Structure formats: C-alpha cells, structure tokens
C-alpha cells in the first residue's frame, strides 16, 4: 500500500488543515467504494500524526513513516476481519490494548477496516469506546457499505465520504498499468478499484467472457431463440463460482448501461469500447423504457444469484424474460 498515487488530494488537504489547527477529532469513518483510497489515506493520516518531520504532509522517509507504511509500528493498530467477520474478541483485545498508553509516545492510532463486517456484538461493544476514548487516541473506521452500520456508530463518528475517481481517471490509470484501451474501458466500469481491475485483467476467462456476453446480448437483440441455448453452450463453460456468475451479469449490465447512456448523451464514454458502433445502433433502436426493463431483469437475476439459485437456471430465466421484451421491440 505505497502512496504511489495521491488519490483523494482534497481529503488529504482537509486533514492537513485540521492537523495544523489541532482540530483532529477522535473518531472518523471513511466511507466510499473499494479502491477510493480509504486505507491509504488512513495510513497517511497516521504518518502525519506520528511523523516528527511534519510539514506539508508526512516525510514518508523517516523511520516512523516507513514502519507505518509497512504495518510495523506498534502504536498504529490495524484491525481487519478474521474470516468473514470482525468478532467481539478482537474488539475486546483492542480495548485491552488501548488501556495502555502508547509504546513509543502517548499517541495511538487505530484503523478498523471494513467495519460493516463487525458482528452485532462487536459493533455494540465498540460504541462506548468510540464515543469517549481515554487518552490520545485517533480511531479511523473504513467501510464500503455505510448503510449496514449501526446508526449508533454513525452518530459517534465524523463521516468522510470518499468519492469515486471519475471514470476517465480510472481508465487512464488502468492504461498506465499497461492494459489495452478496450480492456481498461470495460474494467473501469466493472470496478472502481484499480488493483482489483488489474487482478481481473490477468484472469484469462474475462477476455473471452467479455466477448461471450456481448454475443449473448446480440443473439438476444436479434430475438433469436438460440440465445437460450447459447447460455448453456457458450456462457456456462466459461464461468465457475459465484463471483464469475456475477461477473456475467455485471458485464451484461454494462452493455445496457452503455446503450442507455449513449442514448442520453452523445459523448458518454462507453464501457464496451470495442463494439461502440453497434452500441450506438442499438441506442437508436431501443427505447429507454425497454432498457430499464432489461436492467431490472438483470438486477433481479443478480438477487437470485445472491440467494444461491443455480446460475444456469438464473441465466436461462433472464434470457427468456429478456427475449419476451426484445420481441416487443421493432
């Protein structure tokens, strides 16, 4: 987690001002989509507080800064989910730790990643603690799903929203990482997290999946009943596991989003860059209402996938529903 790029310069500037004025609060919640630089900013904040050489941000060179960025500093405590959730025992240990003053100074910094993964017990036991921590402690919580937190937690922290990087920014940064323009366009829509996108781009099935989904859409758009068979012959062999099933649906959503947005604004940057022209044609043909219907079908399909309905069944159901709608079109 090196600070190679400065994501969120605005937020950092804000914190810099707070540090100068000594108005840093005791508890913050960093909220935003994955890849918006929450953890990065949190560690940066820790460095800023601990670094002896603070001016215009942490020096990032001194012993302290380096230990923080390599997660070695004893007074910067990071807490993340063990397995699928953050359990109450972890929080208890953390609180025990907090009773003691810092190892190297009086200050302590706590970073709890993905607080939405806390069990109810853990979250509740954190309440009193984050309301009035004793001593010189700064707590930063990060989350991607604010609405899943307890309202009692939310009311005790200062919320810092991390806006998503704009799509253009994301495409550019992906291209910097050596992805092709076509890939960067799709991936930047698929996820806002650059690292995750690069991870995905290494996955070979993705490339074939992108094309396969496009063909699937095309057969559907031609009102071809073969689309139903296509699911079985072309899509299913490519995908394995829940994440990839969702990927199929997400890719399909991107096509629909592309068509919808191209219709609305001519200079929308399309995700399916490769098939841009065809998408523009489709945009001429399909009405927004129909597109909305199709999107709803896919979203519903994703819900089925979430509740562990067999993927092929979901895809087939989705296909049939979309065919009926497509047939109503010109």
């Amino acid at each position: 987690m090196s600070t190679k790029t400065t994501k969120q310069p605005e937020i950092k500037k804000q914190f810099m001002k707070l540090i100068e004025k000594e108005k840093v609060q005791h508890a913050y919640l960093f909220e935003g989509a994955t890849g918006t630089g929450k953890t990065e900013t949190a560690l940066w904040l820790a460095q800023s507080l601990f670094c002896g050489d603070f001016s215009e941000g942490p020096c990032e060179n001194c012993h302290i800064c380096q230990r923080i960025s390599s997660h070695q500093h004893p007074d910067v405590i990071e807490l993340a989910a063990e397995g699928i959730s953050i359990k109450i025992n972890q929080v208890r240990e953390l609180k025990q730790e907090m009773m003691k003053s810092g190892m190297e100074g009086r200050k302590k910094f706590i970073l709890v990643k993905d607080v939405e993964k806390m069990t109810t017990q853990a979250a509740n036991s954190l309440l009193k603690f984050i309301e009035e921590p004793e001593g010189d402690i700064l707590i930063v919580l990060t989350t991607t799903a604010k609405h899943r937190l307890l309202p009692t937690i939310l009311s005790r922290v200062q919320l810092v929203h991390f806006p998503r990087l704009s799509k253009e920014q994301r495409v550019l940064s992906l291209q910097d990482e050596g992805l092709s323009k076509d890939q960067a366009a799709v991936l930047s829509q698929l996820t806002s997290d650059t690292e995750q996108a690069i991870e995905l781009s290494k996955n070979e099935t993705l490339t074939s999946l992108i094309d396969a989904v496009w063909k699937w859409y095309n057969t559907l758009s031609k009102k071809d009943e073969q689309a139903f068979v296509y699911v079985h012959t072309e899509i299913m062999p490519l995908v394995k596991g829940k994440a990839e099933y969702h990927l199929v649906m997400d890719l399909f959503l991107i096509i629909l989003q592309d068509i919808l947005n191209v219709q609305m604004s001519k200079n929308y940057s399309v995700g399916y860059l490769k098939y841009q022209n065809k998408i523009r044609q489709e945009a001429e043909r399909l009405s927004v209402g129909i597109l909305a219907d199709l999107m709803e079908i896919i979203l519903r399909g994703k819900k089925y996938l979430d509740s562990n309905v067999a993927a092929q069944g979901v895809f087939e159901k989705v296909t049939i529903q979309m065919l009926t709608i497509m047939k109503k079109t010109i």
Partner: protein
Amino acid sequence: MSYQALYRVWRPQQFKDVAGQEAVTRTLKNALSHGNTSHAYLFSGPRGTGKTSAAKIFAKAMNCKNPKDGEPCNECDLCRSITQGKLGDVIEIDAASNNGVEEIRDIREKANYAPTEAEYKVYIIDEVHMLSMGAFNALLKTLEEPPMNVVFILATTEPHKIPLTIISRTQRFDFRRISAQDIIRRMTYILNEKNVEFDPDALMSIAKAAEGGMRDALSILDQVISFSDGSVTLDDTLRITGSITQDLMIDYISAALNHDTEKGLGLLHQMMQEGKDANRLVEDVILFSRDILIYQKTKDENLLKMSKVDERFSELTVNAQPEKIYDIIKIMNQTQQEMRTSTHAEVYLEVATVRLAQIKSEPVVTTQSEVKKDTDESQEIQSLKNKLKQMQKAIEQMQKNGSDSETVRAPKRKTSRKAAGQTVFKVNTHQVFGILKQATRNDLAKLKDVWPDLINALSTSQKAIMNTSKPVAASPHGLVVTFDYDILCERAANDTFLIDAVGDYLEKVIGHRAELATVPSDKWMDVRQAYIDQMKNENGNQEESTKQEETKETDEVDAVVSEAVNLFGKENVTIAD
C-alpha cells in the same frame, strides 16, 4: 486527540440543557426534588437523544450536596468528579462488552458494599440490550430489590430486546427524537457561545440530516466548522451531509415530471460524480415529494421536512399533479428497498430515473396497448386482405391466361405481399396526393427544421415509432412522412394519439395543425411516381374497377373471406372518401 468533539464538550450537565425531552426531564426533576426516586430506571430512545447524559445528570443530582429543584449544582466536589468520570460510586458499565453472566455477578457482589464517598451508588448500564439472556436473568433479583442506596440506570437504543421481566422492574422513560427546532436552538446556542458565524439555512439542513439525534447534529456541525475555516455555510453543510441543494432537487423532479429522461439521467450522473450518497438521494427525493404533496394541501411551511418555500418550490407545487408525485414516491420507495441489499446503487438509480420520467405515460401506456390491439386487428385484416388479393389476382390471371395455375402461384404470393404493403398506404394515397397537390418547398423546409424537436417532444413510446421518420413533402395543411419500416408506418398511421400529439406540437410551433400521411421510405419513390403519372393522365379510376372485381369474387368464397369483405368494404369506403 487534544481537540474534543463538540458533542463531548457540550454534553448537557443539567436537566434543562437536555434538549427536546421536557416530559422526561421534568418527571425526573420532580422525583428528585421530592425525594421520590426509584431504584431502577430504564432510559430508551434513538441515538443521540440524551439517554446517557440524562443518566449522568441524574446520578449527579442524586448525590449533589446542594441541589436546586432537582438540578445538580455542578460545582461541588462530587458533581465535578462525576462529570470527570472519576467518582468510584458512579459506575458506568458498557454492557455491550461486559455482557456475560460473570460481569453481572460481579456487579451484584459489589453492589452489596455501601457507597464510599457519595450517598448513592449509581450503576449506569449503557447499551443494555446487548446483555445475554443469562446476564439479564442474573440481574433480575438485584434489580427488583437492590441493597440500600443503590440505583440502577439502564440505557438502550433497542428496548424491544429487553426482557419484559426487566422492564416491569424499572421505571421506563422513552426519549423521543429531538425535533429540528430543538436541535437548531441548541446549535445556535453553542455557536453563539463559540462565536462562530452561521447561516440559519445551514443549521436547518444539519438538523434535517441528523434525523432527531443531537449527537449526529453536533458531529456534522463540528465537521462543517472545521471544513470551512470557522463559519457555517449552507454549501459546506450540503457537501458534508451529502444532501443535494433544493435547486438541484427541483431540477430533478421537474425533469421527471416533464418526461425529460435525458436531463434526469444527466443530473443523476452529475450528482453521483460529485459523490452524493445514493441512499441519501433516494431518501431526499422521497422526502421532497412528500413536502410537495403536503404543501399542495396545506400551504403550511412548518410541516415541511426538508424544503424551503421559495419561488421555484411553490411554482413546482402548483404545477405538479399529486398522482405523479405519488408515483415518484412509490418508485423511489421500491428502489430504496432494492438498493439496500445490492452494490449496484447507481444502476438502480438509473432505472428509477427512467421510470420516473415515464410516469405520466400511464394513459399513453394504455394507448400503447390499444395500439397494439389495433395493429393486431389490422394485421388480421391484412392477412385477410392478402388472401383476397391473392384470389383476385389468381382470377385475373385465370381470366387472362385461362390456364396454368401452378406457375401463377409463385409470383402471385410476391405480388400479394407487395399489395399488402400497398394497402396500408393505398388508404393514404388519396391523402398523400391531396397533400402533394399543394406541397411547397417552403413548408417542407420549415418542417424539417422543427422535426427533431418534435420527435423529442413526444413520449418515449411515440418517439420509438417516430425515430426513423423523415418529412419528405409538406403543404400548408399536411405533410408526408416516410418511415424506414413498414410496421412503423402502419403503427403511426393507426395511432390517433400520436397523430394528435404531432398535430398539437405543430400547432404550437408552426401555427397550424397539419394532416399526417405516412409512407414507408422504400415505397415513397413509387408513390411519387404514381402521383406524377396521375397528374399526367387524370384518370385514376382503376381503383374502382378492382373494387368491383373483388366484390364479385368474394361472393364465391367461404365465410371467413366474406367477413373480410365487410372489413375490406369499410376500408374501401375510406378510400372513396
């Protein structure tokens, strides 16, 4: 860090500072001043309403050496050490982390010892809903009859999780959400004390975002102050709460009401790009719609939850139809529920925006289905007509050639299909010719100018039909439009709503209604040629002759066809017109 959050600095230290809970604080004060305190209390209510604060004040007031009307003096040693959390006799327990039977046993044991400094030993058990069942039950007996001079105060946000046996042993106080007015009053007080400038509108929007929690309000206020160099402005507030400005909201709702999908989606993307919270947006739209409805009925500004009455708002309320607003609320509500479990908030919002812009289309939706029915029927008619034509041609052929039906059949089908296409606008040829007779280049140019706007002004379903249309000829009172596909041509010709809509629009823009004639684009050249031919030799009576032939033949065919004759006859009447 060294800076203390506003909600910690300004934690109320007297009952009169606890905002918005007059009923509770007065009861407690009276009980204290009359010495009628109970040994167990349960404070319940949403976050940030003052439960823990009230519990601490109560502990102070009980132990204070010189209380005044039930209020603690906040000056004596005891009061001070309680405020600082140092007094050993006032014990604050976090039930969420100490939720086992063990911890409760510990409390029970220690409760037996008399208080050391103060008069009463007060146990404040916060977040008490997290106690385990065993712990609750272990507490029961102590709670019912605690030792002398021991008082329990339980505080929770979730009273429904507490066993009835506990509730029945305590005096229960329900803390209500704090009203926006009370929150604003308190914030104004704090800001004045701190000498911070502020915009009253900003406080209003903070109070609304806080949803009845004082701590939420102060947290946001804190953030706004540090964000904006020590003053409170509306812009900063909106940025921090992630709410949208009223102007933007009005734009969005108006776009929905005017069926302007494009603008709606544009605004949506803009808001998302600015980092507005999707959930908050949906909530705001719902609340705003509610305000519109309420203001329409009551004209009472005080009932509004999030909007301010200004010119644009009142204009919107005057123009908005309540039914549409209901639909907006309905759609947004559904979206909100679905978004909760999904990571695709943006897609849901896009879908919702499209749906919002289509709301009014309800009458249009029905017409659409009618149109569909119409086209179904006309298709049926068409097929019957085709059969007729086929037969007619066959007979013609037979009459002419007198033989070889096999060879005739193949071309027959082709021609019949063409004929089917032709029948659609054969109905119109008369009309088309009429328009062509008076057509001028000027009229056409005028129409071509307004055509894209006209298509945009139509509802979505109509747009879909008209998208490929092109005006090719126009007279002062009529226009000829070509379509790329026969089916569209047919639909447009049958859709009276569409024709009306086009007429209405033209009336607005070019000042007069125009008769609409439709022709498939690939047939247009033929039609034009036919017109030129007709102009050359003014004898267009072939139609009638074919008509006579048809009726002759239909006498001979079966019932299905005879029914078609009726229908076809009708069509003929219109042609004759």
